[in-house]
């Protein structure tokens, strides 16, 4: 099962994603609450997969994707977007993110998406 880094500025969202992923048997390698932290934690932890929120303080999710891909072109990043952010999701995919899920999360969709991205 995968070691996952969760990036979201809301504790609420991080808790919810962590619950979904641990229930599916994954382990949480770390959490980050800003884009900057996400990049730092990625370097330190080298997780199997990153879940990335788009709107965060101190560097948004898309810039964080660019920074992480620059460090590790094989990084597996799953974007977490809200409704109405299609344009941003496209931008994130172009920046190197592998897939996306839309809030509010449905556990099965998140677990499926993680499995797809890990399988590469």
């Amino acid at each position, binding site marked *: 099962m995968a070691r996952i880094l969760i990036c979201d500025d*809301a504790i*609420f969202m991080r*808790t919810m994603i962590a619950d979904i992923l641990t229930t599916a048997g994954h382990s949480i390698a770390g959490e980050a609450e800003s884009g900057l932290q996400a990049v730092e934690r990625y370097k330190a932890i080298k997780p199997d997969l990153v879940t990335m929120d788009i*709107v965060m303080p101190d560097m948004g999710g898309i810039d964080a994707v660019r920074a992480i891909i620059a460090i590790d072109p094989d990084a597996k990043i799953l974007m977490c977007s*809200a*409704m*109405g952010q299609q344009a941003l999701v496209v931008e994130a995919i172009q920046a190197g993110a592998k897939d996306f899920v839309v*809030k*509010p999360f449905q556990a099965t969709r998140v677990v499926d998406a993680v499995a797809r991205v890990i399988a590469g």
Partner: protein
Amino acid sequence: MTDARRARYVALFAAESRTLLGGARRAMQEWLDAPERQGPAEEVFRVLHTVKGMAASLGFDETAELTHATETQLGEVRAGTQVADRPWLRRLEEAVDAITAACERAVAMEAGAPGEWVAATQEPHGPRYVRVDLDRLDGLLGDLGGLVTARQELDRHAAMDSLSPLARAAQGVERRLDQLRDRILDVRLAPLSEVFERLPPMVRDLARHLGKEVVIEVSGEEIEVDRTILEQLIEPLIHLLRNAVDHAIETPDLRQAAGKRASGKIAVRARRDGDSVVLDVSDDGKGIDRERIAEVARERGLLEAGATLGDDGLLAILSHAGFTTAASVTDVSGRGVGLDAVVARLHGVGASLALTTVLGHGTSFSIRLPTRIGIVRAMVTAIGVERYVLPLTHITELVAWEPGTTREEGGRSVLDVRGEVVPVVDLRRLLGYRGPAAPVRRPAIVIEANGQRVALLADAVLGHVDAVVQPLERPRGIPRWVTGAAVLDDGLPALMLDLASVV
């Protein structure tokens, strides 16, 4: 999602949305101060976006939709298709208030929904919550009072032989009792945000109604105080804010003529100070005309001719019951109606009020409150056959008094205490006691408050207690220097005096 897990998410949502929306309100103030700035827009957008995501995840549809609509409007400003002028910002501010209210409603409905409070056995992790009627907690506090009283009895027996098994057992009881007291008092804590979040909408409503521009700033809402104290704060705060908007903040044209910003500023700030919390309610309005107040006070014999009014004296005059109701004074004071009620209510929970004002520049009221109600170390005194309890915090020393030791100086009785002249107040006279005559030799209890010392004459000092103080519902006729009732070790109640207001 299991019920227990959902309850945890709702609790997280409640806490996080409060913090985030508090941040959004602060950002709105900055934005209103400087509409051309971009930073606050990003901050408010981020908050709305996060709150929307959380609300949607919990199925709080009303909140999610309201937030989404507001986020969309804000998006137009960020995209440059809408200009963020003042009227637009005001509407946005109202929308943020409405979202805050919607979040609270959603959380409250969730809490009130039957079947949501789940057996504690289901989920062993994370915080779990139980809703408790405040009356039950009050009952618990009453029981604790009984225990504290029983302990004092035990301590008296244990003190006869400090090495006895009884004394050791008594020490164990004491330690655990202190722990139990702290835990019970902790359960009663609630964040100031529960009161604070009601203030900005109220102030803005009133300002609009009166044709004034007011920016309100709130901080320190995460600080926790006892729920009883919190409840007693609502009226005084609303009162002070109404007065500030109505009387202190000038109309925009008057403000500009005085070289001030068109919009007035009111701030409610809370901060910790040792065991207390200090709430400052300040405005940048016209200030209080102390010369005019002093004039009226002299006319009414409340102030000696030639005496001047400092801030403390000014507050004393303004909160003098008969004084503040006069319309002529209310007009010039820019303050007034019912300040006596504010002071009385605050004293009822052991809080005090102070005032600073500068004519033309503004006024600041400072409320100092205990974070917890409950146990006060106090001295028990006798006046005739009655007993009164005095909190030890203000007592500096005890001296023996006989009729010859008092002398008259400047129209008042004074006493020399270690070379210092201290005014004497006879508690018999203060309390209107009309029983048997006083003994010849009496203890003078020297107290210090607000930088002043006073010697209080009692009939006797009976000892010390750890008193559990219950705030009093205030029937008419109870003087303002009575703060509450304490239960003594014989199980009978005694009134507690507020020494600060005696001074």
